[in-house]
């Protein structure tokens, strides 16, 4: 078990070392500077501007920036929906899968455009290589780039000394894809292949097994999808069981590499922020707050999973660690990952909005399952999604500044800019939309027969599954207690039976769209409002936002907002199961 903790600590130290490197690089990309890849990719970038008829230096105010995002995302949604619905006539479909049904395609299109990547679809059983590449991989890139672009715009608003321009969305979109996401994905994909992640256009292969049976192996261009799936905190698997499947994540090396890919951008962006506002301490303060909350999450889930589950104890299983075996709750986990790497993964993918899984979350212990729920319940601000995590966190920072201002009786200010009524109202819209959507959707889902038909497990776990489904979709995470509608997927040849339920598809799709774009627009509006504000020099009475006191206060605000909103719901599901040995 000490071995397990050592893995986690070393991993986080390496991450922290990478933060300044990657963070400065991304800052250079945001600011349009030349980077080491410019000689190679500069011509592609300039060609893109010609095709798009965009002048990168032409700034947009927050409304124009937001409008470009909405139009781009809307057209992306339409494109993906059409691709899904016409799969049957497209090439690169060796298994001959038919086109997706309307309800599932609605959910999947919404899911990928919002960087959620919720899987009501079954990857290897319903999607052709063409759709995986041209549909899903593209959205994995661009939805991530949209999140990062919004952050770039928000940071510019915070840092601006005058004017109202937040940058140019099209230029941000192109530069982030070309200079950040694409090169890292390409290198990472090859590293993954070297370990056994597949990358081929051949169709599935059947062979006779050693014991005289047959086994069919689904293949495909997995590594290229896998790399961006992690790097963009997307999380939609090529295979239904996602990164638990050995052809997506075959070894302890790939597990660590994939975890690093997930965290590296959201973590490094705090440094990018610090650098661009000219106060690195501020970036590290936010990083510190995130890391502190993350450590609690990973410690709790690891301890809970190592303890084992009531189902195991009732069956007379020993769950203590013995020589040559980790012990613990290995149901729904892989031997090569063990308890430590599965727990670390669970925490990493749910504090970020990645939502990839390397273990079956539905089979986590009660308290172990509480961790991903609570991590998402923070609004995905503990590192969070690429870009979205930090711009969401900055809303919490402003809220904290406001509350601190109320406590000491001074006008709240951040980075020398006064936070006034308009900003606070926008912040509250941004911070409260998502939790309200979660509670509303989950309540509807458990109170109506249309919703409850999706539930798989008996007892409190059934409630947890429902809550998890809408918590995950509203926070654009994408991981699942996969029993929820999952039970109708498996035996489905082609598309039949993989439709989930219309109610779940539609409610989930709408929730994902609203929860992605409303807070995003609120964040842009706040940045637009701050951009033009005069900067007052810091005085003796200024409440410093880069101090340890502020970090504690920020954590307090995040936890209280999340806890107050979801605490009763958590009690009904995971906490009940964590406190009882009863079986259901």
């Amino acid at each position, binding site marked *: 078990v000490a071995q397990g903790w050592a893995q986690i600590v070393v991993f986080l130290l390496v991450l922290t070392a990478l933060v300044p490197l990657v963070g400065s690089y991304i800052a250079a990309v945001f600011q349009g500077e030349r980077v080491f890849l410019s000689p190679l990719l500069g011509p592609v970038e300039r060609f893109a501007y010609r095709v798009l008829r965009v002048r990168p230096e032409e700034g947009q105010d927050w409304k124009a920036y937001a409008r470009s995002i909405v139009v781009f995302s809307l057209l992306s949604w339409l494109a993906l929906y059409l691709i899904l619905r016409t799969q049957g006539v497209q090439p690169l479909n060796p298994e001959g899968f038919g086109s997706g049904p309307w309800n599932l395609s609605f959910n999947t299109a919404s899911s990928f455009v919002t960087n959620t990547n919720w899987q009501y679809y*079954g990857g290897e059983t319903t999607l052709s290589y063409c759709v995986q590449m041209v549909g899903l991989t593209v959205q994995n890139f661009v939805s991530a780039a949209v999140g990062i672009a919004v952050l770039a715009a928000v940071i510019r608003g915070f840092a601006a000394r005058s004017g109202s321009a937040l940058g140019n969305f099209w230029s941000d979109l192109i530069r982030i894809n070309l200079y950040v996401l694409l090169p890292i994905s390409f290198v990472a994909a090859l590293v993954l292949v070297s370990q056994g992640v597949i990358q081929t256009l051949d169709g599935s292969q059947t062979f006779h097994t050693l*014991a005289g049976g047959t086994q069919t192996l689904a293949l495909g261009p997995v590594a290229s999808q896998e790399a961006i799936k992690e790097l963009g905190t997307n999380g939609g698997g090529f295979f239904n069981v996602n990164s638990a499947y050995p052809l997506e994540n075959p070894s302890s090396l790939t597990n660590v590499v994939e975890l690093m890919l997930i965290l590296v951008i959201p973590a490094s962006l705090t440094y990018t922020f610090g650098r661009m506002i000219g106060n690195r301490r501020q970036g590290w303060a936010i990083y510190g707050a995130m890391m502190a909350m993350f450590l609690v999450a990973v410690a709790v889930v690891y301890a809970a999973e190592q303890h084992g589950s009531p189902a195991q104890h009732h069956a007379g299983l020993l769950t203590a660690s013995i020589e040559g075996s980790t012990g613990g709750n290995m149901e729904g986990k892989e031997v090569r990952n063990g308890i430590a790497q599965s727990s670390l993964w669970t925490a990493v993918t749910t504090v970020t909005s990645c939502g990839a899984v390397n273990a079956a979350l539905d089979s986590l212990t009660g308290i172990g399952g509480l961790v991903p729920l609570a991590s998402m319940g923070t609004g995905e601000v503990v590192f969070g999604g690429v870009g979205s995590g930090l711009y969401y966190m900055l809303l919490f920072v402003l809220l904290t500044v406001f509350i601190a201002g109320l406590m000491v009786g001074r006008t709240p200010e951040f980075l020398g800019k006064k936070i006034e009524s308009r900003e606070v109202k926008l912040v509250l819209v941004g911070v409260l939309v998502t939790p309200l959507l979660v509670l509303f959707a989950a309540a509807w889902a458990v109170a109506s027969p249309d919703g409850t038909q999706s539930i798989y497990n008996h007892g409190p776990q059934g409630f947890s599954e429902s809550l998890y489904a809408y918590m995950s979709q509203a926070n654009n995470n994408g991981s699942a207690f996969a029993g929820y509608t999952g039970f109708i997927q*498996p035996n489905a040849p082609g598309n039949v039976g993989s439709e989930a339920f219309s109610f779940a598809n539609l409610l989930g799709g709408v929730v994902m769209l609203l929860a992605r774009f409303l807070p995003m627009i609120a964040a842009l509006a706040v940045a637009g409002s701050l951009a033009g504000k005069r900067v007052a020099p810091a005085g003796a009475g200024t409440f410093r936002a880069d101090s340890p006191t502020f970090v504690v206060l920020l954590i307090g605000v995040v936890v209280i907002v999340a806890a107050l909103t979801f605490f009763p719901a958590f009690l009904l599901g995971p906490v009940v199961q964590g406190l009882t040995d009863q079986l259901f």
Partner: protein
Amino acid sequence: MSGLRKDLLTATMAIVFLTLVLGIAYPLVTTGAAQLAFPGASDGSKVEMDGKVVGSKLIGQDFKGLPRYFQSRPSATEYSGDVTYFNNLGPNSRELSGFFAEQLAAYLKRQRPYNPGLSAADVPVDAVTTSASGVDPHISLANARIQARRVAEVRDLSLTRVLDLVDEHTAGRFLGLFGEPGVNVLELNVALDQGAAE
């Protein structure tokens, strides 16, 4: 309105351009590079015996309880390599607990003739729980060491040789630190069939 029209045009061109670069060029170039640099791995790390593909070293398979083979972990998917899903039963599931009890009894029944005195407390968790993928290629060292007695006796081999073979087919931790050691069941069984322990 002109701003909106311009955005519609720009967005359309952006989607076309990005689809070409990210959806077609990127996966195809990656495929080409992967096939060149890592031909076996990019095609699924297939394992051959007597010139025939018998599986992938990364994908566990069903050894159907045959005593001469090391057995994989239980699977919720009948070791399917083309339709994957989780078992998805919760931590307090009565059904899951019943499943564990059955698996535990079956494991003890299979092993006790070869491991006298083996008790429930000796059985490692991975031996009675379903894996996440349904095709976990590995079992824990503890599980392999218990099964080694059966395999050695049924195949009339020395236990030491079989245990050595187990060690040979154990994937260690990355950098000696990350992940957990796992014994690759298919590779181990192929080695046994090829007479590696004789």
